[in-house]
């Protein structure tokens, strides 16, 4: 036995005891020890329903309820006010816009009298980089979650989860620096390989950048690493909650580890996994500084390739933040922010619907 064995065994033993508890047979219920417990319970009950205590707590109760309701309302009010702020600031600029807001690839705000801005490229770059991140992070996140819940003994799974958690604690700017200085040159040969052999496919076609570093492709990988902890943490929690009786149903039929996962764990955790991925997507859509550092600005419009450069909603706004002086040009960026706000809102709403209220993240 290993030194940690005792603790683990104590757990399993107590687990088994609680499992049996509800099925206590009538014979044992009538035992002397049983009736002793009953009388203790009745003794304590009058104190709990002591009428003096409930009435004297009246004022405190009201104050407390007021405080908690108030804090709840603050959140709702904050979101409503942010939305209102974005709309109010965006509308004048949208009215003064000389280009089509939805379809134009331009974003020219230097001349306040002739604003020309559209979100087409922003939307393309944002979605391409975030979806690529999702495509990479979803299988890896599920793999890690399965590894942690199904294959690793609990005493190893715990420290491993902490390491994953640490990944979430690394500041965005560090990811950005690493992405452009280390990752981008390192994956350049791979990017070149993809472009040479899969260039006929629009995602791998030559983009609007003269180089293969600092593309959406690089940004997508950086984002994938950044959202991995979010997906892993939530998915792990859901998988770990798979009911024992479901797992046992599969085991008793002679299912192997993988078959147990397929028959019991995945059907149970599927919605939680999708919700976790949507939370990760929300994070990727809004990620700013790492994307700003990694994805290079492009001079020509986006081609829909992963080897494009350009701006996402968030990185464009951040890049222009130092020039927010005149209301109309600023409003152009705020309208871009409004679209991002709505986009993340929709993604989160989908996550919640899919999860059926099971996820609290």
């Amino acid at each position, binding site marked *: *036995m290993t030194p940690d*064995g*005792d603790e*683990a*065994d104590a757990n*399993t*033993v107590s687990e*088994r*005891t609680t499992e*049996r508890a509800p*099925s*206590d*047979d009538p*014979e*044992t219920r009538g*035992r*002397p020890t049983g009736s002793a417990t009953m009388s203790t319970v009745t003794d304590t009950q009058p104190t709990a329903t002591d009428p003096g205590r409930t009435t004297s707590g009246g004022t405190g109760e009201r104050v407390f309820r007021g405080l908690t309701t108030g804090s709840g309302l603050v959140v709702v009010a904050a979101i409503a006010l942010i939305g209102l702020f974005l709309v109010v600031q965006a509308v004048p600029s949208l009215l003064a816009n000389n280009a089509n807001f939805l379809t134009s690839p331009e974003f020219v705000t230097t001349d306040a009298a002739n604003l020309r801005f559209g979100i087409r490229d922003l939307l393309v770059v944002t979605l391409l980089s975030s979806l690529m991140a999702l495509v990479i992070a979803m299988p890896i996140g599920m793999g890690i979650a399965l590894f942690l819940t199904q294959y690793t*003994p*609990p005493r190893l799974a715990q420290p491993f989860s902490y390491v994953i958690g640490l990944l979430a604690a690394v500041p965005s700017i560090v990811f950005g620096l690493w992405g452009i200085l280390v990752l981008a040159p390192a994956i350049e040969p791979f990017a070149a390989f993809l472009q040479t052999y899969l260039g006929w496919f629009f995602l791998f076609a030559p983009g609007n950048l003269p180089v293969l570093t600092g593309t959406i492709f690089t940004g997508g990988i950086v984002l994938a690493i950044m959202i991995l902890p979010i997906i892993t943490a939530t998915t792990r929690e859901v998988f770990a909650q798979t009911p024992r*009786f*479901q*797992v*046992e*149903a*599969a*085991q*008793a*039929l*002679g*299912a*192997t580890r993988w*078959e147990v996962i397929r*028959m*019991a764990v995945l*059907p149970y955790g599927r919605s939680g996994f999708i919700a976790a991925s949507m939370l990760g997507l929300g994070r990727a859509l809004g990620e700013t500084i790492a994307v700003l550092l990694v994805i290079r600005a492009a001079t020509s419009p986006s081609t829909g390739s992963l080897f494009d450069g350009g701006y996402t909603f968030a990185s464009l706004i951040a890049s222009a933040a130092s020039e927010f002086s005149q209301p109309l040009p600023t409003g152009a960026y705020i309208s871009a922010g409004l679209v991002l706000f709505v986009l993340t809102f929709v993604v989160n709403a989908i996550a919640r619907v899919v999860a059926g209220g099971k996820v609290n993240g």
Partner: protein
Amino acid sequence: MAKRLDLKDVDIYYGDFHAVQNVNLSVPPRSVTSFIGPSGCGKSTVLRTLNRMHEEIPGARVEGQIQLDGEDIYARGSDAVAVRRTIGMVFQRPNPFPTMSIRDNVVAGLKLQGVRDKKKLDEVCEASLRGANLWKEVSGRLDKPGGGLSGGQQQRLCIARAIAVQPDVLLMDEPCSALDPISTLAIEDLIGDLKKDYTIVIVTHNMQQAARVSDQTAFFNLEATGKPGHLVEIDDTEKIFSNPTERETEDYISGRFG
């Protein structure tokens, strides 16, 4: 089909905790053997060692021999997954796969064994559901999820799932404890039918049930909490409930037990 089980000097441990001590008993084929005894006496633990399900708890181990028609299921080279494919189990709480249809639930074990022939699967599905006395109730909605059935129907679905693979032995861990009396009666009748073809071991808290369904009864007890459980005696059910050899057994079945 319907093999014999022999337990020889079986000791069961959870890590350092000695859960069950020195069990020797035999379960003849095509019969029902019930395990009775107070909570914590290890009867469920013994049952779970019979298809190596207890191994899923970290630190659990078995000493001694458990033989299926003379072959030790714990022998080196014997695989827990393979053992469970020949020794079926029905649990305390009905546990159909909630997302699978009734049909898929029944044939889940066969699919694990690689049977893909749809005609064969449909045949086994019908035969198993008939065997579990559930066919008439569900034949019109085989594609509906198994989770939509009543508790008693779900438990019979689980029995159908267990017998679909034609196991050598069928283990039942308090199969009626979550069911109402009418469903319980249905399951008990079913056990009576099934013993024509299967070797059945059932753990029950209900002594009347043991008396009604089983051919032989094993009484387990423990000296005190924290002490290992042990087999007090095993004998024909009639003898256990009318004239047991051990005083302990008599105290327990007559309700004098502490």
